[in-house]
């Protein structure tokens, strides 16, 4: 862990702690949402932006994590920590199962399998009413934090979830800037060549997929616990598409990209006029198409290019953080 790492973590925590002093309840709630969805977008960032594998069904992990946490509380009267562990554990198992099969397949077949798995999970969510209560969803009382603080209290909720999210995002950043992150990017660039260097490529891809799935699952669990509610809509392919959109618009290959994309687009959704809300899915689709065709590397990539152009007289930056083209 370098000094830069430690400073950034501190900075993030400070920002989070200061916010309530300058912003009201709505902004606080929005911040937590943005942070949690940023985690979800980052899960796409890890899988696609870094390892080069696209998933169209990632809401499946989000939703499974959410349901795991919720059901732990409603059926087993579990505490907060157990609920979160369930979210992470269940999606880890799911991810390993899916990855074991899917990573053997070539690029677009892999993506199709994730689409299918996502759809299957959605159908299970809407079909298995007795367990999930489908679209009507399950509302539940949130357990207490450390047995004393009520998560129903907005300030408690704000501090807990935002700090947790910052810690998780920091850990993801730490991972992505570590040798493992570099390795994942190598797999994105040329997984075949990595094989000839002796890397167990299939297993590494499974690792990436599992980390990604667990992150999505944790974000889902956190969202359920934050809102006290879960429904089959958490599994919907529209959410899967939104996650892809957030990551791609922001720039899937960097750390800040998915966070930027999620924050910008979710905030945008909040301020959309009521007319535009009616056509929200059309906007999502259009943004996805436009960002793929025109915004190579997303916003983060564009900033990087501007930075590189300005620094043209000095030695170029050593790390290209833009969206990579998977081979």
């Amino acid at each position, binding site marked *: 862990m370098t000094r830069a790492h430690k400073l950034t973590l501190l900075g993030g925590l400070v920002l989070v702690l200061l916010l309530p002093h300058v912003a009201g309840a709505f902004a606080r709630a929005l911040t937590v949402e943005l942070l949690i969805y940023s985690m979800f977008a980052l899960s796409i960032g890890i899988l696609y932006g870094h390892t080069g594998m696209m998933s169209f069904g990632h809401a499946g992990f989000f939703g499974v994590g959410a349901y795991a946490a919720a059901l732990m509380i409603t059926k087993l009267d579990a505490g907060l920590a157990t609920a979160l562990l369930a979210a992470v554990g269940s999606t880890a198992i799911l991810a390993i199962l899916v990855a074991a099969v899917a990573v053997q397949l070539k690029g677009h077949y892999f993506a199709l399998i994730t689409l299918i798995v996502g759809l299957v999970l959605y159908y299970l969510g809407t079909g298995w009413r007795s367990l999930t209560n489908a679209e009507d969803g399950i509302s539940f009382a949130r357990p207490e934090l450390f047995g004393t603080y009520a998560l129903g209290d907005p300030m408690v909720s704000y501090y807990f979830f935002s700090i947790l999210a910052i810690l998780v995002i920091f850990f993801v950043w730490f991972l992505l800037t570590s*040798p493992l992150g570099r390795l994942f990017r190598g797999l994105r*660039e040329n997984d075949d060549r990595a*094989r*000839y*260097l002796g890397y167990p490529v299939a297993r590494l891809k499974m690792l990436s997929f599992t980390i990604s799935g667990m992150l999505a699952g944790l974000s889902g669990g956190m969202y359920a616990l934050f809102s006290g509610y879960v429904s089959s809509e958490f599994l919907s392919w529209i959410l899967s598409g939104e996650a892809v959109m957030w990551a791609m618009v922001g720039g899937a290959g960097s750390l800040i990209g998915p966070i930027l994309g999620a924050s910008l687009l979710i905030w945008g959704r909040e301020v959309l006029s009521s007319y535009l809300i009616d056509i929200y899915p059309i906007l999502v689709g259009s943004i996805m198409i436009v960002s793929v065709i025109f915004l190579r590397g997303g916003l983060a990539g564009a900033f990087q290019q501007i930075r590189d152009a300005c620094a043209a007289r000095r030695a170029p930056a050593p790390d*290209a953080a833009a969206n990579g083209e998977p081979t």
Partner: protein
Amino acid sequence: MILETRGLTRTFSGLKAVSSLDFSVPAGSVRAIIGPNGAGKTTLFNVITGTLPSSGGEILFEGRSIAGKSPEQIARLGISRTFQLTSAFPELTALENIWLGVNARHGSLSPFTPQRKIRDLEARAHAILESIGLGERGHIPAGELSYGQQRMLDIGTALSTDPRLLMLDEPTAGLGVKETASMAALIKRLAQRMTIIVIEHDIEVVLEIADAITVLYNGELLLEGAPEDIMSNETVQRIYLGHQVHVKGGIKGEPHADA
């Protein structure tokens, strides 16, 4: 013998790309493999490195059978190769390209690797980069290097895993005169530390670096021997010019072989 094949065969839908090949390379030597296009040279490489399964026969590396192993396993055993087409990690820097190989051999996957170890690995990568003449270019993304530099980087990446056997597939293809000379000089330097097998079309390079030459023709071993003998051999000259050749009791023709 660091590498031996016995009766190695690889068939593609009835076509014998490699046919009952008995081929061996002593440790520490440089072996050149030549032959017209379609002779099976790259296929031989592919079978040895696990890209393709063999259709029969044995492959022994340092006395142990490696037939049927995956490319990852074979790479970890100490064999490294380059390809006819450059194959790098284009958006990673040259240093990172090499680093990946170094990390495969000496590093670990743990994100909690201590900084000291990370710096040690990068130092090793940098040393290799220097040895192939790209020391100044470590920070440039591999995709932005010139073609000749990319070919060099290929070699560097292959070296990064500390192989005992290095297999190069047409390393000088597409290189200019100066770059070819640098490449040949590099191969000679490397030959002091490891065994090298090279597929080459450039005769001058072959004569300069090879201890022995193996000639492949239509998937079979045509001739083997010292460079001067092979080069002055009439049969070899004729197959390169596309004439028919009597080999082991049958007539084989190669109407469009490249000279």
